């Protein structure tokens, strides 16, 4: 929790929910939890607006509440991590689209748009939207319902906790076994509602939300598989995928190391997939390569039943974080800087003299780079004195080393800052050129209506000329810049994801 994080959080709230919610969010960020009256007092916003903002933030899962010091008075807490996830929503949807199809994407999007909702209304809204986008008369509600159940079974969606009894401050709880219990809908009632008739779908009071952890789990697997595919080849990636599948059968998803998977079972599973004959043939070799690889994704933990293999999630993400940071150092300080960084990493603790010698970089340049790395906190210094007396300077060693945890946190901060800057810049570009964009939109709409009315090509050309060539060039420039910035935001999020995951494994 830092200043950068706070600023980013606040900006995201502003972009998505407007300035009132931004102010309330800022106020809540500053303290752990706060009752309603104090929020009104410190934000100086109208009482009614604060209430409205809190309702919406609770609805979207950004704020939780619990009974505070006084009975029947709730205290509100902001979940800033959930707010940052707003940037990742497109990735969730893309995952749904690629793995479970358009219907699943639509269902998840509808839930994300409302924060939480009942299964029936999600299905109906998704059906209406599908009808619009696919231009068909009828969308099968049963398939949508089945899709919904599949998503629940796969734990992408989960039930929201619900209040036990009527109280001033409801206590929201849910039983473990109910969490991923698919909804039982009255399909006839659902169909009635869709046709505009009153009907009862039979799921009142049961709300669903998106289980972000499950999505993150898939992202994590994707990252690992693609890392192995890049390092060895696609067959190895496929093998890791299979290993992960086996792992889920016997291990909790977020464990640091998986329980051992016997080789025989793995081979059976690979044989069933006939798509990759080479993998079936050389599975032992592939396993051997992956096991001996320095990345340490997979390790052999026993020899019984043909060998026992386990996946080291924690090590994998330590390695991925190293790779990420090395790349950042490479881009910032050039290849020589990266060489020094890697050298310090390999030697753990190393003296300046040694760096120069081993890295084979001229002394002066090596010093310059080392101190620059130190200045920007990629390297750290450890003093080692032979005697504790202050007046014997020559007996002190200065050893360079890397504290990965600290560097990862720092890089994460840099990501937050970069993200904030990109968003601010994008907003700035947009507001600077708003007039122009609006003009263009107006012209477009005029052209459209004229065309419908059957205007001649001459007239249309005349209208289009209302936008002068310099203006068009400027518009194009602005558009590419905005696109680039939003693209950068999405890709920054990928780096952030790796670093956050690394840090979460360290705890």
């Amino acid at each position: 929790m830092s200043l950068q994080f706070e600023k980013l959080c606040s900006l995201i709230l502003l972009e998505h929910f407007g300035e009132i919610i931004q102010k309330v969010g800022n106020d809540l960020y500053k303290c752990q939890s706060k009752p309603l009256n104090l929020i009104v007092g410190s934000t100086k916003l109208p009482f009614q607006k604060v209430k409205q903002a809190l309702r919406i933030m609770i609805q979207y899962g950004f704020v939780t509440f619990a009974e505070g010091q006084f009975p029947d008075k709730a205290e509100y807490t902001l979940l800033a991590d959930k707010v940052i996830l707003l940037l990742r929503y497109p990735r969730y949807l893309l995952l749904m689209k690629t793995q479970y199809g358009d219907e699943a994407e639509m269902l998840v999007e509808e839930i994300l748009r409302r924060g939480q909702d009942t299964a029936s209304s999600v299905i109906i809204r998704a059906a209406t939207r599908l009808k619009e986008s696919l231009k068909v008369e009828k969308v099968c509600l049963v398939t949508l319902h089945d899709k919904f159940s599949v998503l629940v079974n796969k734990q992408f969606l989960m039930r929201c906790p619900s209040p036990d009894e009527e109280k001033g401050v409801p206590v929201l709880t849910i039983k473990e076994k109910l969490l991923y219990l698919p909804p039982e809908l009255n399909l006839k009632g659902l169909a009635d509602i869709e046709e505009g008739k009153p009907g009862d779908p039979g799921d009142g009071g049961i709300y669903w939300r998106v289980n972000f952890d499950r999505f993150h789990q898939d992202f994590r697997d994707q990252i690992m598989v693609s890392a192995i595919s890049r390092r060895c080849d696609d067959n190895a990636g496929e093998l890791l995928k299979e290993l992960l599948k086996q792992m889920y059968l016997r291990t909790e998803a977020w464990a640091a190391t998986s329980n051992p998977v016997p080789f025989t079972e793995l081979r059976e599973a690979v044989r069933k997939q006939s798509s990759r004959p080479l993998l079936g043939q050389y599975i032992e070799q592939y396993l051997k390569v992956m096991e001996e690889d320095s990345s340490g994704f997979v390790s052999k933990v026993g020899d019984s039943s043909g060998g026992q293999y386990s996946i080291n999630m924690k090590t994998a993400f330590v390695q991925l974080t190293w790779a990420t940071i090395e790349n950042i150092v490479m881009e910032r300080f050039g290849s020589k800087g990266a060489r020094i960084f890697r050298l310090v990493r390999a030697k753990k603790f190393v003296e300046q003299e040694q760096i120069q010698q081993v890295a084979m970089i001229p002394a002066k340049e090596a010093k310059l780079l080392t101190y620059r790395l130190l200045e920007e906190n990629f390297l750290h210094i450890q003093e080692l004195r032979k005697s504790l007396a202050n007046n014997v300077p020559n007996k002190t060693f200065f050893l360079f080393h890397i504290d990965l945890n600290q560097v990862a946190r720092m890089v994460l901060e840099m990501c937050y800052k970069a993200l904030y800057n990109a968003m601010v810049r994008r907003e700035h570009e947009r507001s600077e050129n708003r007039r122009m964009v609006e003009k263009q939109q107006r012209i477009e709409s005029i052209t459209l209506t004229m065309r419908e009315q059957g205007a001649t090509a001459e007239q249309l050309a005349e209208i289009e000329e209302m936008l002068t060539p310099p203006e068009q060039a400027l518009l194009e420039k602005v558009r590419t810049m905005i696109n680039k910035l939003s693209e950068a935001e999405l890709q920054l999020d990928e780096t952030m994801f790796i670093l956050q995951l690394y840090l979460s494994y360290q705890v």
Partner: protein
Amino acid sequence: MAGRGRGGGRGRGRAAMSFSVEQLGFSPGEALPGPVLQPPPIYPPMENRPIPLQTGVEGEYMMALKRDFVEFLRDSPAFVTPVATKADIERYSDRYQVALANKNHGDLKFDWTRFPSELRPQARLTGKRKRRTKATEREAKLTKKSLDIVNRLDELEKKEEQQSDGEGGGEEAEGKEEEEEKEGEEEEGAMDDLEEEDLDEEMDEGTDYINSYFDNGENYLDEEDDNLDDGPIY
């Protein structure tokens, strides 16, 4: 003074460091760089050009999704717009902006059992406020009565005359009297309450200072409550 003495003892410049400068790679005769007295530049020059972003269909699709999502939220009731403040002067462009601000966002549906009661729209009357409203009602009653007093005196006068006119005035008059008595009691009751409640108010009874010319501002937010309609309750 003591400090200077110690500094002198250590010698000047380079020797003041707690470690030997040679370790940093400066040869003995070399001058040390001067101290940096300026903050670093806000936009430091880029040494290496960043590598271009990966572009692809997926990225474009995600961007479109993101844009849609933000646009959806902007138009949805979840986007809380601030209360429009009145500008110092009326501008021509205001007309359009007002139209924008008042764009009907519809209402969000909330399941109120899931929210603390203080956030629910119907839970606006707290104990304190209820008492306040009662008090204001009473005030209103009272002022009305003080206006009626002249009429009432007239009435009483007439009645007295009637009574003196004919003792056997009939049951009608008696009935009337009873009514009057009842009314009187009620009035007294009301007066008693008042005495208990607030003596000051009674003292002011004769004047009209009490008559809601004074606004202590407590009602300020409440008025707004009433203006802004909360969503329907489910």
